[in-house]
C-alpha cells in the first residue's frame, strides 16, 4: 500500500516584516507518518509550522494538503479541512476543560462532537474527571494533555505540534510521547517541531532545520549516520 502524501510544502519562503526567516523549505508528510522537525531555538520551526497553517503568509512557494493547493487559504479553512495545530500555549487557560474541547471540535456536528469528546475523556481520564475545571488550574503537563485533546477534538487528519515538550519536566515529556505514540498507532499523522531529541523515538522521518533552511531530511537512522543531529542541535563540536 503506497501511502498518500497528506501535506506537501515546496519552496517555502516566509518571514516577518522585512526579515526573512525561511529560505526555500521543501517538506512532505505522508499519511499515517510521524515527522519530527528538529531544530534549535530560532531556527524557524514555529515560523514554518505557522506558514503551513496559514498563520504566517508564505512569500513564495506552495502548500498542498490532501491534494489541494491551500497556500492562499485562511487558517480556519485549513483546520476545517483536517489540519490541527497545537501551539506552544496549546489551551485557553481561562476556559474549562470541556469548553477547550468544544472549541477544538468546533467544526464537528453536535453528536459527532459528543462522541469525540467521550473518546478523548476515555483516553485522558484525568481530564474527564474535571470537565468543569479551568484549564489554568491544571499543571503544566496536564495542560499539554488538554492541548493535545483540544487539537484532536476535531478529529483531524494531520496534527501539527509546536514544541509539546516546552516547559515540561522530563517525566511529563515521557508521558506526552507515550500518548502521542498511542494516537500514532491508531493512524494519526503527526508533524512535530521539537528541540528535544527524545521525540526522535516517535519519528518515522526527520527534518532538521538550521537557520531557516532544511539541513537534513531522512530517517532517524540515516540522520545519526549523517551527524546531522549534532550540527543542527548542538552547534559547536
Amino acid at each position, binding site marked *: 500500500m503506497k501511502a498518500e502524501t497528506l501535506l506537501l510544502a515546496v519552496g517555502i519562503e516566509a518571514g516577518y516584516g522585512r526579515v526573512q526567516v525561511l529560505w526555500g523549505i521543501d517538506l512532505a508528510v505522508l499519511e499515517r507518518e510521524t515527522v519530527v522537525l528538529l531544530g534549535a531555538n530560532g531556527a524557524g520551526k514555529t515560523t514554518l509550522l505557522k506558514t503551513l*497553517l496559514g*498563520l504566517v503568509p508564505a512569500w513564495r512557494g506552495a502548500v498542498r494538503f490532501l491534494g489541494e493547493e491551500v497556500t492562499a487559504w*485562511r*487558517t*480556519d479553512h*485549513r*483546520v*476545517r479541512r483536517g*489540519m*490541527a*495545530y497545537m*501551539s506552544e*500555549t496549546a*489551551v*485557553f*487557560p*481561562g*476556559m474549562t476543560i470541556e*469548553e477547550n474541547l*468544544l*472549541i*477544538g471540535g*468546533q*467544526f464537528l456536528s453536535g453528536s459527532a462532537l459528543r462522541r469525540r469528546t467521550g473518546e478523548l475523556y476515555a483516553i485522558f481520564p484525568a481530564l474527564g474527571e474535571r470537565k468543569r475545571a479551568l484549564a489554568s488550574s491544571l499543571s503544566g503537563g496536564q495542560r499539554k494533555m488538554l492541548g493535545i485533546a*483540544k*487539537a484532536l477534538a*476535531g478529529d483531524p487528519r494531520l496534527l501539527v505540534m509546536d514544541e509539546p515538550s516546552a516547559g515540561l519536566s522530563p517525566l511529563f515529556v515521557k508521558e506526552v510521547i507515550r500518548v502521542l505514540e498511542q494516537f500514532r498507532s491508531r493512524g494519526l499523522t503527526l508533524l512535530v517541531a521539537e528541540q528535544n531529541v527524545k521525540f526522535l523515538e516517535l519519528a518515522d522521518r526527520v527534518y532538521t532545520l538550521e537557520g531557516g533552511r532544511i539541513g537534513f531530511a531522512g530517517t532517524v537512522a540515516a540522520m545519526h549516520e549523517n551527524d546531522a543531529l549534532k550540527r543542527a542541535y548542538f552547534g559547536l563540536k
Partner: protein
Amino acid sequence: MLIYTLLAGLLFGLYFSLMGLGLNLMFGVMRIVNLAHGDFLMLGAFLAFWLFNLFALNPIPGVAVAFALFLLAGLPLYYLLVPRLLAARDPEMLSFILFFGFSQVIEAVATIAFGTSERSIPGGSMARAAAAVASLLDLAYRPGPIAFLGQSFPVAWLAAGIVSALAVLLIYVYLYRTRLGYLTRAVMASREEAISTGIDVHRVSAIAFGIGIALAAVAGVFVPFMLGSITPAMGVDVTITSFAVIVIGSLGNPLGTVLGGILYGVSYMFMQSYYSSWANLLPYLLLIAVLLVRPSGLLGRQVRRA
C-alpha cells in the same frame, strides 16, 4: 428617601448595565474602543420612535426589531472598519480616533435626517404594554407607576430593568452555553490562540460587533422613558456614561458590566439625592479610583500595568 434612592439606584443601575454591555463585549472581543457607542444607542432610540409613530409599534416589541436590525447592520460594518483597523500598529489607540470620527458621521447623518428637536414616545405606551403583559400573566395592574418594596417607581424603570436583566442573561447564555459563545470567549481570551485553533476570528468578531451595537440599540429603545428625550447630539453623554460603567465593572468582561452598572447607578442616585449639583462628578472620580486601585476593574482578572 434612603430606601427609595437605593432601590432607584439598583433599578436604574440595571439599565446602565444594558447601556454598557455592548460596548464592553466589543472591547473584550476586539480590544477596540467604540466611541460611537452612544450614537448607535441614539439610532436605536430613533428606530423605536419611528416604529411607534409610523406603525404604532409598542417599544417592547420594538426591542426585538431593534436588536435584529442592528445585528444585521453590524456585520457589514465590522468588515468595513475593523479588519483594517486591527492591521494598524496601535489599534487600541487608533480605535478611539476612528470611532470618534464615526460618531461624528452618525450624528451628522442623523441631524440631516431627523433634525435637531427633541423627540420621545408617550410614557403611556410603556404602561399600556405593561398592562398587556400583566393581563397575559393574570396580574392585577392598572397603568401608572408600580409599587415595589413599598416604594413607587415608573413602570418603564421596571420594564427597562427586566429587559436589561434579560439581555445580560442572554449574553451570559450566549457566551457560556452556546458554541459560538465559546468561540467568542476563546477570541476574548487570546486572539492568537484562537486563530491557531482555526477559529474564524473575523466571523466571531463580526457577530460580537453586531451584538454590541444591537445591545446599544436595545438600550436606545428605552431612552425616551429613562433619559427624557432623543436628539442626534445625545450620543456623547451616553458614551461617557457607558465607559464609566464598564470601567468600574471591568473592561473586557461583559458580565462585570452588571456590577459596574449597579454600582454606578446606586452611587449616582445617592449623589443626586444628597449632593445633586455634584452628581456628575462622582462617576469620574469613581472610575479613576477603581482604575488606580484595580486597573482591570472590580471584576477584572489580570492586572494590566505598563
